[in-house]
């Protein structure tokens, strides 16, 4: 099942150019949605004001090399979700992040690199399936046990709100993707296969076109905020106190 490329069979009905056009449309939707999101929430303006104030209060100017090292440190932190203090949240976030990257990148490679009639290497559908499974593992753990309104604010684990638009559509997309792939490889009836494909397509489209109203854009602005925090700490413009030079822990 996991070595089956679901897009290859689809290309017998849908021309490869249509699938490629859809992928490009979704990419454009993410770009436009992200720009609109940071504009209409005012977060870009707030972030810009904070940056200017930090620059004005900086005790020393950072060189290009120092800034480059801070960029590397930010990438390293984001790669291991270092901003999370509690390991369960960190694990679910890493599963979702790397699962999503595998899922999206393998989709793009299969749709653009192996259009109709070409033999797909088995590793690509396997990576696609692995990505979807990682999304489901991390996403379901997060959805039922770690959502902050559920864990701290008394909401039901089944509660659905606008804040769940991103995680909900991501989970549904991965779930129906796997079901669609399984139905195809198991030789299920056309009605079932097309129904599952329709659900997969609906939730995938929902995931990408609702960026202005969902939490999708956090994957772009969070690293920018983390970088700015590092710049403020390094240039002496952070408004936080200096870390204590003394430890007061004297016994175990």
């Amino acid at each position, binding site marked *: 099942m996991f070595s089956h490329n679901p897009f290859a069979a689809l290309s017998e009905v849908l021309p490869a150019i249509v699938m490629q056009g859809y992928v490009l449309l979704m990419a454009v939707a993410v770009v436009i949605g992200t720009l609109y999101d940071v504009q209409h929430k005012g977060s870009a303006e707030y*972030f810009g004001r904070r940056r200017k104030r930090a620059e004005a209060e900086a005790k020393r100017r950072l060189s290009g090399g120092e800034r480059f090292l801070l960029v590397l440190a930010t990438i390293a932190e984001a790669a291991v979700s270092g901003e999370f203090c509690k390991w369960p949240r960190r694990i679910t976030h890493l599963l979702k992040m790397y699962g999503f990257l595998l899922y999206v990148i393998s989709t793009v490679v299969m749709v653009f690199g192996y259009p109709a009639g070409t033999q797909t290497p088995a590793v690509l559908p396997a990576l696609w399936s692995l990505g979807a499974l990682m999304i489901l593992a991390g996403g379901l753990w997060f959805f039922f046990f770690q*959502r902050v309104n559920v864990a701290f604010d008394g909401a039901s684990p089944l509660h659905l*709100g606008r804040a769940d638009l991103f995680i909900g559509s991501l989970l549904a997309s991965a779930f129906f993707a796997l079901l669609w792939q399984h139905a195809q490889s198991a030789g299920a009836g056309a009605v079932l296969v097309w129904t599952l494909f329709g659900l997969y397509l609906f939730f995938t489209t929902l995931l990408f076109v609702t960026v202005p109203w969902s939490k999708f854009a956090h994957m772009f602005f969070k690293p920018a905020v983390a970088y700015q925090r590092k710049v403020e700490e390094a240039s002496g413009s952070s408004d936080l106190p200096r870390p204590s030079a003394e430890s007061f822990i004297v016994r175990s």
Partner: protein
Amino acid sequence: MPTFTDMTRCDGCGECVDICPSDIMHIDPVYRRSYNIEPNFCWECYSCVKACPHHAIDVRGYADFAPLGHKVRVLREPEKGAVSWKIRYRDGRVKEFVFPMRTTPWGSIKAAQDYPPPDPSALNSQLLSHEPEALHIPALPTIQGA
């Protein structure tokens, strides 16, 4: 002087919701980030400011003196048992203070039920449960000559 959350820094971990003694730090249903649901009831205890691992919560001054530019920021370092304050006065002076919070590692305090039950004869003693060993001293101080 109610608290407010920097949405770009908050990662929705819920620490502030858990610790707020007034139960006024809640989770926004749209963005799933924390926010103060009742600013008038905030008594600026700074519990959420200290608990926030991302320093995303700050305390806003009242409109009549906030423009004068004062600021109070805090950094909690449980691994050092320290809490540090940075005070920026309205005239621009900045002062920093460091205070000890505790002398034992974070999370090391045992709950009462984690200790073995005391002997019933301890009811006749003036010492409290697990004194003096739990205080890390050989004996409680006494008034000489009493």
